[in-house]
C-alpha cells in the first residue's frame, strides 16, 4: 500500500471570505453481466432490435410470476466481496410502485429495507495518497424499459428489451469531496467489477450510470448541507461537469442568503447546467412493500464461501503483488492494475520473457510505446496490434543486447503491421546489433585516428566531447553497434 500522505489537494470553492467544501455521494447503477434477466430468461444483449428480448414476465402479462436468476445473485455477492462488504444472508425484494409506460408491471422489483450487500469500502489512489470511500449498500433491482419520444410527433414508443435487466445499485457514503475523486471512484468501481466479470462497465451502452448527490458546506463544518440529486448521469466527464456546476450553484445561493431546496435535478449536457426536475414535495410515494411473489432471498455460508473462493485477484492485491514481486513503483503498479486487460497483458509479457528478464524495461515499453500507439489508434489493450508474446521477445532482444533501444523503436513500428515477430524483423532487415568488441574497437580506432585533435582536447579535460565520439561510432556502425560496448571501448581508448 502507498503511504498515506498528509498533503491534501483540496477541492474548495472560494467566495469572498468563505471557502466551501463539496460533499458528494453516488448511487451507481451497474448492469449485471448476465446472459438473462433478473427474473426471466430473456436475453440481455445490447443493441438488439426493439422488443425482441421480452418475455411474458418482462411485459407483465396477467398471471406471470418472477423467478430469481441465481446467476445474478452470485454476481451481486461477488461484487459485494470485491467491495469488501458485508454479505447479507437474508435479503428481501420489494415492490417500488409507480406508473410509467415503460414499466409494464406498474412497479419495479428492488431491494429497499434489506439489501443483499451491506457496508463496504473501496480505496482510491489519488495523486496525494490513498483515500477510503465507504459503501453504504448494494442491492439488486430490475431496469425499466425505454420510452422513445422522438420517432413520432403524436406517439411515444416503448422498447422493453431492457425491462427486467438486472442492475446493481451501489450506494456510496457521502465521502467524496471533488470531481476528481468521483472520477477515481467510478474508475475504481468499474475496475473491480471488470476484474470480477460482474459488470462490463460500458458507460456508452448505459451499463454504468449514476445518480449524483451534491451538497456544499463551509470548510470545517461538520454538518451536511441540503443535497440535490442529479439523476442518471452517464459519463465520468458529465458527472464532473454536473458536480462543478451544481456545487457552484449551491454556493451562489448560500452567498445570496438564499436556501437550497432538496430536489431532484437533471444535467443538461448541451447547456452544461443542472435543472430542477421535481421538488421534495413532488417526490413519488413509491409505496414500497415486500414482493409477495418472491420469498426472502436466503443464502448459506457455504454458498458465499464458494463464491469467495472463486474471486480472482483484485486490483488492490494485484498492485501490492506487482510492487513486491516485480519491484514496481506504486505509480507503475497503479497504472498497470487499473484495467484488468492491461494487467493481464503485462503479466503475459512477464511470463513470456522467461528467466533473464527486465521487468522495468517491459513496463516502460507497455506504458510508453504501446500506450501511445493504442491511444493514437483509439484501441483497447485487448485489441493491441502487438501481442504480449512479441512484445516480450522485443524486450528480451534489447535486454540481451541483440538490438539497441533505438533500433527497437524502429522494429516496434514494423511489428504494428500484423503483429510480426521482432526476431524475424531483426534477421530480415539485418538490424542485429554489432556486439563484437574487435569490430567495434576497429571502428573506434579509425574514428580517433580521424579526429586526433578532438581526442587530445578530450584528454585535456573537455569531457563533453565523449558524446561526440559515441555519436560518430554509432553513425559509422549504421546505428547497430552496441552502445554499451562503444562506451566501454571508447573510455579505454581515450584514457
Amino acid at each position, binding site marked *: 500500500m502507498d503511504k498515506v500522505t498528509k498533503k491534501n489537494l483540496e477541492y474548495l470553492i472560494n467566495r469572498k471570505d468563505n471557502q466551501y467544501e463539496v460533499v458528494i455521494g453516488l448511487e451507481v447503477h451497474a448492469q449485471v453481466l448476465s446472459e438473462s434477466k433478473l427474473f426471466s430468461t430473456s436475453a440481455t444483449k445490447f443493441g438488439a432490435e426493439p422488443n425482441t428480448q421480452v418475455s411474458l414476465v418482462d411485459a407483465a402479462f396477467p*398471471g406471470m410470476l418472477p423467478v430469481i436468476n441465481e446467476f445474478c445473485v452470485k454476481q451481486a455477492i461477488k461484487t459485494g466481496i470485491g467491495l469488501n462488504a458485508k454479505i447479507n444472508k437474508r435479503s428481501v425484494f420489494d415492490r417500488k410502485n409507480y406508473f410509467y409506460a415503460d414499466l409494464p408491471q*406498474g412497479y419495479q422489483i428492488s431491494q429497499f429495507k434489506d439489501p443483499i450487500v451491506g457496508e463496504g469500502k473501496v480505496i482510491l489512489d489519488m495523486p496525494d495518497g490513498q483515500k477510503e470511500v465507504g459503501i453504504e449498500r448494494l442491492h439488486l433491482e430490475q431496469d425499466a424499459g425505454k420510452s422513445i419520444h422522438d420517432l413520432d410527433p403524436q406517439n411515444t414508443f416503448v422498447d422493453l428489451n431492457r425491462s427486467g435487466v438486472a442492475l446493481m445499485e451501489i450506494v456510496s457514503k457521502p465521502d467524496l469531496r471533488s470531481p476528481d475523486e468521483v472520477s477515481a471512484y467510478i474508475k475504481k468501481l468499474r475496475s473491480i467489477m471488470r476484474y470480477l466479470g460482474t459488470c462490463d462497465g460500458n458507460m456508452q451502452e448505459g451499463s454504468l450510470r449514476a445518480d449524483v448527490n451534491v451538497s456544499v458546506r463551509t470548510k470545517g463544518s461538520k454538518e451536511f448541507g441540503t443535497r440535490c440529486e442529479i439523476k442518471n448521469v452517464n459519463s465520468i466527464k458529465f458527472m464532473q461537469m454536473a458536480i462543478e456546476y451544481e456545487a457552484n450553484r449551491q454556493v451562489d445561493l448560500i452567498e445570496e442568503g438564499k436556501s437550497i431546496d432538496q430536489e431532484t435535478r437533471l444535467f443538461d449536457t448541451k447547456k452544461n447546467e443542472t435543472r430542477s426536475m421535481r421538488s421534495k414535495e413532488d417526490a413519488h410515494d413509491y*409505496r414500497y412493500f415486500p414482493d*409477495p411473489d418472491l420469498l426472502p432471498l436466503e443464502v448459506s455460508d457455504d454458498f458465499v464461501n464458494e463464491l469467495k473462493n472463486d474471486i480472482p485477484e483484485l486490483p488492490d492485491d494485484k498492485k501490492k503483488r506487482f510492487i513486491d514481486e516485480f519491484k514496481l513503483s506504486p505509480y507503475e503498479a497503479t497504472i498497470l492494475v487499473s484495467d484488468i486487460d492491461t494487467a493481464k497483458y503485462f503479466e503475459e509479457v512477464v511470463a513470456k520473457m522467461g528467466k533473464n528478464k527486465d521487468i522495468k524495461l517491459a513496463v516502460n515499453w507497455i506504458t510508453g510505446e504501446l500506450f501511445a500507439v493504442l491511444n493514437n489508434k483509439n484501441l483497447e489493450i485487448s485489441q493491441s496490434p502487438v501481442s504480449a508474446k512479441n512484445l516480450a521477445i522485443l524486450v528480451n532482444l534489447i535486454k540481451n543486447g541483440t538490438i539497441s533501444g533505438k533500433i527497437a523503436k524502429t522494429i516496434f513500428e514494423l511489428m504494428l503491421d500484423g503483429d510480426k515477430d521482432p526476431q524475424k524483423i531483426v534477421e530480415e532487415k539485418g538490424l542485429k546489433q554489432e556486439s563484437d568488441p574487435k569490430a567495434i574497437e576497429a571502428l573506434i580506432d579509425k574514428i580517433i585516428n580521424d579526429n586526433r585533435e578532438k581526442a587530445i582536447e578530450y584528454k585535456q579535460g573537455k569531457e563533453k566531447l565523449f558524446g561526440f565520439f559515441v555519436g560518430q561510432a554509432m553513425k559509422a556502425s549504421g546505428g547497430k553497434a552496441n552502445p554499451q560496448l562503444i562506451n566501454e571501448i571508447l573510455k579505454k581508448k581515450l584514457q
Partner: protein
Amino acid sequence: MSDITKQSLTELVKNIKSKKLSSTDVTKAFIERSEKSKELNAYITEDFKSALNKAKKFDQKPNLDLKLPGIPMAVKDLFCTKNIKTTAGSKILNNFVPTYESTVTENIWNEGAILLGKLNCDEFAMGSSNETSFFGNVQNPIDKNLVPGGSSGGSASAVAGQLTPITIGTDTGGSIRQPASFTGIVGLKPTYGSCSRYGIVAFASSLDQAGPMAQNVKDCALLQEVISSYDPKDSTSIDFKRNQYSKELTNNIKGKKIGIPKEYRVDGMPKEIEDLWQKGIQYVKDCGAETVDISLPHTSYALPTYYIVAPAEASSNLARYDGVKYGFRAKGENLIDMYEKTRSEGFGAEVQRRIMIGTYVLSSGYYDAYYLKAQKVRKLIKNDFDDAYKKVDAILTPSTPSSAFKIGEKTDDPVSMYLNDIFTVPVNLAGLPGISIPAGHDSNGYPLGLQIIGKAFDEQNILNIAFAMEEKINFKNKITDWWIK
C-alpha cells in the same frame, strides 16, 4: 344414459374407462345442459364446439390410463387458457386472449380433461356474491335471485347446476369455500404453495390459491391430486410430497382430535348455523373422532387484517392493467389522462374501492400503522393455529355465518358483504388448507356448509375427515332445475 350430468366425476371416469360412456356422450350431455342453463349466467366464454371436437378426438384413441379421461369441464375465468379469452370478470381484460396456459389448467388437460368454457366470477375475484362481475350476476341453482357466493360463483353454480362435473376455483379469502357452502357442493382451498399460481390472474399473491370444487369429497380429492404440483415457475410453490389423495382417501378417522374454536361463535350468528355446527360435532364423534375445545384468540382480527393485506397486494398487482400493453384502453389527452380514463372505465366499483384501500394502507406515513401492523397480526393468527395444532389434528367450524342471500341484498353495504368471509379468511392468512362440505339446510332449504381446517400440507387428513362426515351427513342438494324451461 339420460342422467349423465347427475353422475359424479368418479362415476363418469369409471363409465368412460369401462367404455359404457364415451367422452363424446359425456361432453354432449354437459354442453346440452349448459345450453339450457343460460339463465344461470355461469359462463363468460363457451368453448363447446371445440370441446366436442376434442371429445371426438379423444374417443378415436382414448387413453384410459389418465386420471380425467375425456372428462369435460369448465374453469373459473381467472385461469389463463391458451388462445381462449381470459377476462377475470373484468371489462379491462374483456378482449384479452392469453398465448399461454396456467400450470393448474395445464395439469388438468395433461390428465385428459377437456375445456368446456370459462366460468363467471367476481371481478378480479373481489367479491362474495359474484355481483361485481362485469359480465353480470350469476344465479344460484338453489333458488332464483339467490347469489351463488363468490368470487368463484360461476364455478359453484356450474357444479351445483350440473353444467360441469367438476371445476376449479381460486380462494383468496374464502372464494372457493363460501360459494361451495352457498350452493351445496364441496370446495377445497389447498395449503398455500400446493397449487401453482403461474398463469392465474393475481388478486392478492400471498393469499391466492387454486383449488377443486366438486359434488363430493372423492371427486374433490381426485381433482386436487391432478392440480397440485411443484412448479419452479412460481417462487412460492412448495416442493413437498403430494399424496394420491383419492386413492389414499379413507373414512377411518377414529381417534382423530378435532378442535372446536370458541372464537368462531360470533355475535349475531343465526341459530341455525350454531345448530349446524353442533350437528357437525356430533357427526365427527359418531365417526369415532374426539372433539377438543380450543382457542384461536386472534380470530376477531382476521377480517380487518385481511382487508389490509389483500387490497395492498391487489393495488400493486392490478397496476399492470394500464391500457399500455393489452386489454382495454380508453382514449386520453396524454399518458396520465389515458391511465385515469382506462382504469376508471375498465375497473368496476369494488375493484376501485380495494385499489384505493390498498394504495392508502401502503402510503408513506400509513404503512407502519396499517400494512406493517397487519403483517404482525397475520403472524399472530398463524401462531394461534400452530399452538392449536399441538393439541388437535384438524379444526371444525361453520363455513359461513349465514346461508346464501338474495341478489342485491348486500351490494350497498360492503362491510356486511365482507363479513361473509369471517370464518374462511383466517385460513388464507395462515396459509392452511380448508375444505367446505355441505352439511344441512336452513329453514328456506338453502344449503349450509361446515369447514374443516387442516395443518399445512395435511390435505389428506381433512379430505378423510370430510369423507367420513359426508357419509354420516348424507346431504342431498335440492336442485329443482327451476331455470330450465
